[in-house]
């Protein structure tokens, strides 16, 4: 379990995060959502340990993140960044194997190789494993990096508590892979007890794949809890400042942004 305790971060006079308290459970997918500049990426970077908050603590399994050695942290926490360095010309397989770096010294073990191959199979990138990453499309590269992150936190025994942090993992992807990747993340959470934290923009994907949600605005948490409780018309309209309709019953959960359902119905004569 990951806890953010009273996290604040200021750059100059601007508060990027102010007094954020949140917790994230193993075995569940927690989505972080909110408009641009709400501090979502900053929050996950603090949790990943790549930036240090000005105030407050991050605890991973009841241990302060500052007390965990970088190498140990690397074996249990994977983080997929929003942006990638395009210029490196590693082959796809080499790039995925970088995910196993924290687990071996000089040469990867057979187990590492097996994990690398499995991660590539899951992401459907094995067919171009020898291509270099500087001439892949954006979506292909995104899948390669996702495979690298999965390889890093690949569960080997059921007791380990791994943490997977994804910052907008489906940005460049077509619907097929958007669903494939989020389904994989959910699968890792449910079947391997991984704690998954994912920053998402698409409200329907949030509704479909997350157990819990955190709604942020201007560096503060507006609401958190079960996704079904956080995604309400009133809260979302307040945060995003556009009309929003939610159609929810036993069989469906749809969110329409930019227009009220009644008006849409009238215009399209549904």
């Amino acid at each position: 379990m990951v806890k953010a305790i009273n996290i604040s971060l200021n750059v100059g006079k601007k508060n990027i995060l102010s007094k954020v308290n949140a917790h994230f459970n193993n075995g569940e997918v927690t989505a972080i959502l909110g408009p641009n500049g709400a501090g979502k990426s900053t929050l996950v970077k603090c949790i990943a340990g790549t930036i240090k908050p000005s105030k407050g603590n991050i605890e991973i399994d009841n241990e302060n993140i500052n007390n965990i050695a970088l190498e140990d942290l690397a074996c249990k926490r994977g983080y997929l960044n929003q942006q990638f360095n395009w210029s490196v010309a590693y082959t796809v397989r080499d790039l995925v194997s970088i995910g196993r770096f924290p687990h071996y010294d000089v040469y990867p073990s057979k187990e590492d190789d097996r994990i690398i191959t499995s991660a590539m199979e899951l992401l459907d990138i094995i067919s171009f494993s020898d291509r270099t990453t500087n001439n892949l499309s954006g979506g292909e590269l995104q899948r390669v990096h996702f495979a690298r992150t999965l390889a890093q936190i690949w569960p080997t025994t059921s007791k380990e508590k791994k943490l997977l942090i994804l910052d907008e993992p489906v940005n460049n992807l077509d619907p097929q892979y958007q669903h494939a990747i989020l389904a994989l993340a959910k699968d890792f959470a449910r079947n391997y007890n991984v704690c998954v934290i994912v920053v998402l923009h698409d409200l329907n994907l949030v509704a479909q794949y997350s157990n819990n949600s955190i709604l942020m605005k201007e560096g503060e948490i507006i609401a958190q809890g079960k996704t079904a409780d956080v995604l309400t018309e009133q809260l979302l309209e307040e945060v995003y400042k556009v009309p929003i309709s939610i159609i929810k019953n036993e069989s469906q959960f749809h969110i329409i942004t930019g227009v009220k359902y009644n008006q849409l119905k009238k215009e399209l004569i549904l």
Partner: protein
Amino acid sequence: MTHRVKLTYISLFVLLPICVIIATSLGAFKIEFKQCVNIIINLFGAENYSEFTIPQYNVLLNIRLPRVLLSMMIGAALAVSGAGLQGLFRNPLADPGLIGISAGAMLAASIAIILGLQFTNGFLGYYSISFATFLGAISTTIIVFRLSKSDKSTNIATMLLAGIAINALAGAVTGFIIYLSNDDQLRDITFWSLGSLGGADWEKIIALIPLTILPIIMIARLSKKLDVFALGESEAICLGVNVNTMKRKLIIWVTITVGSCVAIAGMIGFIGLLIPHITRLLVGPKHRNLIWISAILGALVLSVADLLCRLIVAPAELPIGILTAILGTPLFLMLLIQQKRKING
């Protein structure tokens, strides 16, 4: 290891001793190839004095062999430093000049020359210019490194800019010193800035062994970390790399080795930039192979370049910096065009 990488290692290891023999047997003073081999065999105990003369023996062992070995050590050290810095800056155009090493060395050497240090027989005597150069190289790098530090971390972009600024400043001061110098000093400064491997002896070799071999090994030990670092700073942190320690180690080893190479041989351009570039085309961007193959290739190329310097205008010598630039520039442009073609399909 792929087939291609293995092949590269094998062919370079075969070329290396061949290169030593050819480079020692050719030169203004005539030593036949066969005599050269005989002298070397003689070293290992077989007595066959009849085949060569004592002057030949002396030229080969006390002048040429140290010179070839010196060129190889310096070539390897410069190439590895270039590979390391290109990894650190995540930019294939980085070279040791970028962090102020060369500019500081140049400034210190000019000051030493204009103060007439090489004529005095003070504390360091003959080595005073080398010593001043080494100090100059190290202190500018320390300044650049300090300037780029904020809190506990080192900002690579700031480091690049600080390097450019310090380079400009050191260049201006060097210019002022040149303005103050007389004709002889000006000539000395100019020749120093073009580099030379002349004056190699066993003493220098022994002094340089720990200052090149150890840094090369230490830089090579950072390969895995540099591989991760290529993906970006936050990726490297997430994969367990202490990026600040890595940056500091790399800068320290590069400065030590390049500083001592510049101190002994003056400024030799293009090796640090070009060799890692060529190596990357041969064996790809992973640093373990990149660094080791750069080392061997750097050794080969600089010893061949030095051989040409000795041969082209024999019995005089061309400054090596001229040759590396003349040969390096077209090669570099060729690589650029080739790469552009590759990208454009």
